[in-house]
């Protein structure tokens, strides 16, 4: 063991090619420590203008460009995960499910009935929309709605990959059937323990 170490030290000594690349790699790893800081007090866009937001590009007269809103929470992984928590707790799941849609329209595709801009999604949540979307005015405050908005946009990949939540808080489903290993069927004593009559 001692000889081995000595040999390694001798081999490496005086040869920067052996030391520099690994050291540089290790130093580079430190960069990921500063991926992002938790911003607990990021200012979301003011919500006053949202009350008059346009929902479609169709309008009389000459075409005007749609406004684009920047939601600061879309750069903040903590805020997006808080949005995900609120999405579950406010029962968005009840209609939109986990993005797949069912009673309400799906959110994981990039088709939007009332616009994909953060301010449009914000006003959809606050004002409610026909055919079932309730209004969350005075149920959530603006800060929370902006967080949900960021999460809803992350469902269709509108936010950066390193900001979007990487896992759920609840249990995930079983692995796909394609990766299930074959088990030999049990021949006799067919009743599994869980299906026995209670004694």
């Amino acid at each position: 063991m001692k000889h081995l170490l000595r040999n390694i030290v001798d081999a490496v000594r005086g040869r920067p090619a052996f030391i520099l690349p690994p050291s540089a790699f290790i130093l580079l790893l430190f960069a990921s420590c500063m991926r992002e800081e938790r911003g607990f007090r990021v200012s979301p866009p003011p919500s006053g203008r949202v009350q008059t937001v346009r929902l479609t590009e169709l309008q009389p007269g000459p075409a005007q460009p749609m406004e684009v809103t920047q939601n600061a929470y879309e750069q903040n992984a903590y805020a997006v995960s808080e949005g995900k928590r609120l999405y579950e707790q406010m029962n968005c799941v009840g209609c939109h499910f986990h993005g797949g849609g069912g009673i309400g329209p799906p959110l994981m595709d990039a088709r939007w009935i009332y616009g994909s801009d953060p301010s449009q999604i914000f006003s959809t949540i606050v004002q409610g929309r026909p055919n079932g979307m309730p209004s969350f005015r005075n149920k959530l405050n603006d800060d929370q709605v902006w967080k949900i908005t960021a999460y809803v946009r992350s469902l269709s990949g509108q936010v950066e990959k390193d900001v979007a939540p990487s896992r759920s808080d609840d249990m995930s489903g079983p692995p796909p059937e394609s990766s299930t290993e074959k088990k030999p069927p049990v021949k006799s004593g067919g009743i599994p323990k869980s299906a026995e009559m209670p004694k």
Partner: protein
Amino acid sequence: MPSQSALHPAGPQAGRIISLWWMMFYVTGAVFLIVMAFLVAALARRRRPYAGEAADVPDVRPEAARERRMSHVVLTGVGLTVVILFVFLIRSYVTGRALDSLHEQDHLTVKVVGHQWWWEVSYDNSTAAYTVTTANEIHIPTGRPVLFKLTSTDVIHSFWVPNLHGKMDLVPGHENVTWLKADQEGTYRGQCAEFCGHQHAHMAFTVVAEPYDKFKAWYDAQLKPAAEPVNPSQAQGRQVFLSSPCVMCHTIRGTDAGSRVGPDLTHVASRGTLAAGTLENTRGHLGGWVVDSQKIKPGNRMPPNNLEPADLQALLDYLQSLK
């Protein structure tokens, strides 16, 4: 400032723990001093010169009689160590049994649920109408055993009131129990003793031990629904509370607010602290907490609230009337 020290026991449990601790402290302290004394003596002592040799040449040859004497010393040392460790073992076993022997019929049952980062406290009663729910402040009568049923909704927390007992973990999906009794009146500070996230350090509570009469008076006051507003400002404050997102998380019994996500605010003004022991319960602190709690306790679940100044003052008037 309430007391938070395991060195000042206020109940039988903490008393047993501290007497075990002091015994271990004195015995191991004495052993440490003896070992250090031998070490210093060994360093200071010069070896005797061997007959016929120069005085500065140490004699390293073994000497039969001396070797025998030395082996006796070592054997005695090993024997003593075994005896001391056995005494410790038996004493700590006996203490452990005694800590677990407080079970009595005539006890009070308190349920504590840990949340990130506050404590939900409810007093069990077979009649639902007599169940009291509060937060971060536990009142117990002195001289009567209290059974604490502990659980958590999110991550593992730990319930620790050093003056009364050792720690007990709050585990999600599982109920742990611990018994304690306070013999002396007083206010004792407790704290979460298991790292539970960003605001673990700001997850404290107080245990108020008081004579049964005072405890009963407190309990009866907590049972009542919230005080009705007595002036227009308080009435407006209640309207602000009920028509804003406050109601999505908090309960005020006697009103339509009945959510169980945040602390019960029915008698919030009767409590000594805000935000799980983070702030003293004053009007200024309450206002700051409502408007921008993320500055005070970053990462907590309370969102910032941009209220109109008049609405905020009315809300504070109302919340402060909830004695």
